[in-house]
């Protein structure tokens, strides 16, 4: 198997720059995701790898071979289209057989391979049905079989689960991972759904406005966002802007507008080290903040701030609290675990304490003046 290498890919549509100077290397057998909001250039990038678009500048290599301007039918790359694009005039098995028929492989061999593929995606029983007669999830499986039968070096998946409902989506996600493990080829997965990208990928490229904002394993992207965009786009977060008051050993003291000072531990291995007076942003995930009406006694929490509960939203697996701390609003997720049996639920307007470890937050060397520290359920980007 070969490595996919993108070198300085830029793509213009008229005067619009859809992809801007993207370079990346995708290892053989990797499950790699392009994640970003619609219009971020992820689909354009995928279409250039598939051969449907040619880059305005830059080069694409598959191993040592340059494939930049090779037509799609000459690339060892197959695509799962967003709407599956099954041929409506062909049955399930004929759809799967298409690629091999084009290659003029003997009929007996085609039949064998088609059956094998249909078995892989558990669609043997539907082989004589037409696409209009099968469900969305089944179409998805047929599309996968139709692509994989060509034994591509690369399988491209363009928002493959977008058309399915939630339960089926979760199911197909696991199935996709299983198929990836079974066939072992490189998958490139395009999605705007951060949940999908984080749960199945080996590595994720977060994209915005045609550029790769951050690239790395899902945990790294979630825990150590390198930019406000990454932090906001993936998961929920509290972004706190402030000025660095003090840098002492591994601790940073941050002065926020309208609130107490916060402390952060930083590790020079993966944090940037700010200077006193720098303006920075801190990303603090809501699930990392503890909330209680009692002030914690133990001193292992560096950050303990008093606040007032402003809003409570019960979400089944957890409850979301909006807590006013000075002029800031914090979003806090709390699971329904009680420490004491007779503990009472928190109520509106109640005075509470928020506390978190100094290692729970992540420092971002970027400030957006126009942005409020916390916005509920909105992405101001």
């Amino acid at each position: 198997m070969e490595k996919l290498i993108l070198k300085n890919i830029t793509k213009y549509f008229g005067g619009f720059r859809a992809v801007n100077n993207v370079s990346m290397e995708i290892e053989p057998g990797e499950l790699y995701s392009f994640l970003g909001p619609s219009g971020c250039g992820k689909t354009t990038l995928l279409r250039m790898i598939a051969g449907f678009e040619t880059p305005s500048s830059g080069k694409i290599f598959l191993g040592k071979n340059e494939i930049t301007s090779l037509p799609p039918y000459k690339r060892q790359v197959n695509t799962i289209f967003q709407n599956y694009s099954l041929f409506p005039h062909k049955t399930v098995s004929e759809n799967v057989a298409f690629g091999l028929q084009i290659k003029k492989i003997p009929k007996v061999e085609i039949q064998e391979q088609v059956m094998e593929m249909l078995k892989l995606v558990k669609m043997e029983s539907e082989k004589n049905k037409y696409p209009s007669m099968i469900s969305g999830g089944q179409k998805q499986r047929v599309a996968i079989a139709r692509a994989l039968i060509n034994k591509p070096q690369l399988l491209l998946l363009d928002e493959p689960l977008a058309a399915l409902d939630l339960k089926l989506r979760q199911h197909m996600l696991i199935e996709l991972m299983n198929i990836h493990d079974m066939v072992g080829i490189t998958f490139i997965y395009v999605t705007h759904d951060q949940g999908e990208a984080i749960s199945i990928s080996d590595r994720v490229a977060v994209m915005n406005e045609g550029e790769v904002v951050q690239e790395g394993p899902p945990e790294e992207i979630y825990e150590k966002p390198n930019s406000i965009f990454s932090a906001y786009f993936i998961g929920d977060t509290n972004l706190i802007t402030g000025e660095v008051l003090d840098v002492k050993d591994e601790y940073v003291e941050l002065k926020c507008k309208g609130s107490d000072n916060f402390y952060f531990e930083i590790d020079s291995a993966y944090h940037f080290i700010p200077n006193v007076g720098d303006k920075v942003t801190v990303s603090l995930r809501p699930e990392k903040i503890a909330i209680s009406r009692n002030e914690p006694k133990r001193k292992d929490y560096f950050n303990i701030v008093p606040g007032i509960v402003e809003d409570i939203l019960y979400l089944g697996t957890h409850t979301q609290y909006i807590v006013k701390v000075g002029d800031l609003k914090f979003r806090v997720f709390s699971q329904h675990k009680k420490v004491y049996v007779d503990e009472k639920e928190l109520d509106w307007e109640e005075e509470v304490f928020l506390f978190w470890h100094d290692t729970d937050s992540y420092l971002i060397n970027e400030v957006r003046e126009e942005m409020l520290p916390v916005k509920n359920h909105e992405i101001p980007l």
Partner: protein
Amino acid sequence: MIDRTLEKIEEKRKNRLSWILAAPVLLWLVILFLIPYLIVIIYSFLTPTIYDIQFAFSLESFKRLVDPIYLRSFYISFRLAVVTTIACIFLGYPVAYYIARKTEKVKNILLLLIIIPFWTNFIIRIFAWRIFISANGLLNELLMFAGIIDDPLRILRTDLAVTMVMIYVYLPYMILPLYANIEKIDFTLIEAAMDLGANRLKSFLKVTLPLSKEGIFAGSILVFIPALGAYIIPQLVGNQDYLYVGQIIAYKIKSIPRNWPLASALSLGLLVLVIVMLILLYWFYKRVIKKENKLFFNEK
């Protein structure tokens, strides 16, 4: 139980309603289509007189149909219809495809351009063609001006002229149903085919063409049937050495000595040709699907 009864009543009501809605058209078709055709069939079995008919049974008209003169007429009419249909498919398909892939706004303008000739009277358009292709017409003038020919070509009153004008007149009838069909094709299917290894030609042959065969079928019917009975175009631009079936029918009806039974028999002959052609087309249409399928898993 009550539900079932209610359902039945509802169904009956719906049936009655659809009958009422369909009645005017059915009546129209019976009075103006079915009954006249029955009259034609009856007339074909009667005996002709110089002015009209005599009510005496005769098979004479049908015997005359196999006369080489008429067989030749059938042959040239059939040939004209086939050539026109095929030429319209080949000329119309790229146009329909081109329009179908344009943006909504451009599509509407282009479709309007296709329809605009209908705003001018059919006869006037044919006379315009006569002037255009005549010995000292624009076409010959242009060819001579360009130095391609020295003497004017004889185009008017040839089979070529008939075919050209037929194609011109019937092309929109091919383009419109083809466009309606191609427009509905999901063009990502072509990308899918290319992704799976088919080059442009193969993805056209294996995906686009099979998916547009309904349009080709509909367009062919719309062109072939009227083309088979062509009368006015051969009359105005054709050579009159031999006549097309439509022309013969017209002569036998209007010029004395009249022969209405023969005219009726000739039009029934055209009907048979149409039916034969429809069966052929249908068979071809089915075969295209079958061939595509190649009976993959026929154990079931």
